[in-house]
């Protein structure tokens, strides 16, 4: 069953602008991960945030987590054309085995040069 839902489904911005993507989920989680997928390729892990963390940074990426609202956001600052890809959030339910990582449907980001 789908756990995370990304919003918006698609986002188009100019190079240099910031891009914000959101993820909402339904049940309690242990952690939330963000992945990136270039067109027609596999997914690449970007960042993981644990349920007891509120914010995490990695280079130009900033992830926030609000467990009271069951939501997370991914911010990409100073976007580049190479950031064009689909971005997925993924969660493991609290109490579930550590195997079942469920993905949202993704946000398709287009960065226009």
């Amino acid at each position: 069953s789908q756990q995370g839902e990304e919003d918006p489904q698609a986002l188009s911005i100019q190079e240099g602008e910031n891009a914000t993507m959101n993820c909402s989920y339904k049940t309690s989680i242990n952690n939330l991960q963000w992945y990136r997928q270039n067109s027609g390729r596999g997914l690449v892990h970007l960042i993981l945030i644990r349920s007891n963390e509120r914010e995490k940074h990695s280079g130009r990426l900033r992830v926030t987590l609000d467990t009271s609202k069951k939501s997370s956001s991914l911010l990409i600052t100073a976007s580049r054309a190479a950031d064009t890809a689909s971005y997925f959030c993924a969660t493991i339910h609290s109490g579930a085995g550590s195997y079942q990582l469920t993905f949202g449907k993704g946000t398709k980001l287009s960065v226009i040069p």
Partner: protein
Amino acid sequence: DVKVTQSSRYLVKRTGEKVFLECVQDMDHENMFWYRQDPGLGLRLIYFSYDVKMKEKGDIPEGYSVSREKKERFSLILESASTNQTSMYLCASKRSGEEKLFFGSGTQLSVL
């Protein structure tokens, strides 16, 4: 550099054929996964394996089976391919106790 390799990038098969999708990882990971990805539906888990010869059904196992005879290799089998199995198939692996998944490049399967 860690690597998950899927045997075919593109595959075209006929309805009723038996199809094997192979996945090999070189990271000595215990856990391996097969997902399918369809437009508008995202990634859905078909099967996973947490050890050699062990397998568990995911969310959509119907019409599929898997084999894990060696730690590094996880095969997805379509016993009798159907057109609704046309999809992108993604293999992934991870180490037990860790959360990060490593993905292969995917196999785009078309069943005609």
